[in-house]
């Protein structure tokens, strides 16, 4: 499906996200927020495989990630980073995508272990998704089987500097190229694949719609997806009939 040399480690900001703010104060504020984002990373470790075993040492007294402001969090709502630590079976991948979509942007994905890069030792398994970035935009890959805690922290620092400098914008690519990602997902899960999250609406909400957001795959999705609109408060049932 994808070639190995396509691993996106660094990304240039895409055009849609690159709107400039002219107010210098706002600029300072943006910088501050970016700085804080880089110094406070809540990670959700989706412990799919062996790589998970390297995380506890990274968090406890030997390496202590908290001194870098990195904390584990348990729900996607609170997390900034999604850590995928090992091979991703197809069944797991559905959950990963759901979890990713429930995370709050700006959000980042780190693939740990070779399995997330190219399938690793499971490269010929019928049951695993080989290349994670086909389904989600991955910000940092930390290869190795398994990478040592030092390598994990090094990868984290990489991401931190990316965030601080504003280069880590991969979460926007998911909205901008939704059709591409959805297509890959549909190939794997079948045509009736959908998640509760309405990505297209979110893309609109963030102003991240591009011509690549919608396409044949999203058309397929919209055929059977009934978007879950928020249950707004209302006083009578008539409003609903109007819409």
């Amino acid at each position: 499906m994808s070639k190995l040399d396509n691993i996106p480690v660094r990304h240039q900001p895409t055009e849609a996200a690159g709107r400039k703010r002219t107010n210098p104060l706002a600029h300072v504020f943006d910088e501050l927020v970016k700085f804080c984002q880089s110094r406070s990373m809540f990670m959700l470790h989706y412990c799919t495989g062996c790589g998970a075993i390297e995380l506890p040492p990274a968090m406890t007294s030997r390496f202590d990630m908290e001194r870098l402001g990195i904390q584990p969090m348990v729900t996607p709502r609170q997390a900034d980073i999604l850590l995928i630590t090992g091979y991703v079976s197809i069944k797991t991948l559905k959950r990963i995508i759901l979890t990713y979509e429930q995370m709050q942007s700006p959000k980042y994905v780190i693939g740990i272990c070779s399995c997330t890069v190219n399938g690793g030792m499971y490269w010929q398994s019928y049951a695993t998704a080989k290349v994670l970035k086909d389904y989600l935009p991955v910000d940092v890959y930390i290869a190795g089987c398994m990478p040592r805690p030092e390598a994990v922290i090094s990868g984290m620092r990489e991401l931190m500097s990316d965030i601080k400098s504003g280069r880590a914008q991969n979460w926007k690519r998911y909205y901008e190229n939704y059709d591409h990602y959805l297509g890959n997902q549909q190939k794997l899960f079948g045509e009736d694949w959908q998640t509760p999250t309405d990505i297209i609406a979110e893309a609109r909400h963030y102003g991240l719609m591009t011509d690549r957001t919608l396409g044949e795959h999203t058309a397929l999705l919209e055929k059977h997806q009934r978007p879950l609109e928020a249950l707004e408060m209302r006083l009578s049932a008539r409003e609903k009939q109007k819409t």
Partner: protein
Amino acid sequence: MNLSELLIELLLMPLVAFVIGLGMVLMMRKIAARLGRRIGPPLLQPIYDIIKLYGKRTQISHGLIHEIGIIMAVGGYVAAETLLPVPGMNGLADKGGVITLAYVMMIPSLGMALGVGQCANPNGSIGISRALTAMLAYDIPFILVIFGAAYVYGTTNLADIIAIQQQQGVSGWGLMQMPLLALAGMLALPAVMGKQPFEIYIAPAEIATGPMVEMSGKFMGGLFVMQCFQLYTAGVLYTTLFLGGGAYWITFLPKIYAVVAIPMAAAMLFPRYRTEDVIRLMWKWPVLVGLMGLAVAMK
């Protein structure tokens, strides 16, 4: 005191409380880290966290009540701080008193509970159920302590309580006057603050941080702010009741930090208590000590 001074005080008090509370959060995390032989977060970590959370692009809301809940959680404590006298500022201490304070302190919990309820996530509801149960557990010794103090000092006005204690120097402190009640309060304090080992209600791996499960971005940030206030309020209230409050910030600050630090450091070493064990513990020892203290104090 004229009105403008009062208004300034009312503005300043929550602000001061927030800043001190940030320090307390940091201190707590540092203590936890040090006890685990870690370095712990940097100095400004609480601020980083809060700013980051408010700066998130996505702010998932489950409805109006979700938002109002967070507003109540923060706003309730902002109001509570004005009832709590600190050196140089009495705020509304004479308008409410300690009973009012104790009840105003429940408003944020109620707000949070409402917000969590609106999230429609059972993990959150379970967390609230546990938090409220824990409140039932620790409020009984806590209220006993408050009663004892108010009775012994003969007033519910916190400013008066401070004045009474300071007239007699250290020997006039509540700690000296009613050591048993002070001990009971100290025993209940970790539970009041909802920190280890009494944080079963957030049980991250079990119920995914309970009440916070659907809290993201500024919602989470609001809860972080609330936590600062919570620690501050507990510390200052205990200091006011038993450690003579503070005439000067220079003596006041060490006291309140110590009040938070000492029980925390001890409590951090215990494994987490189950909900019913929280009740069992709180209804047993602090209440027993508190009742004995009352018996002594009222004699």
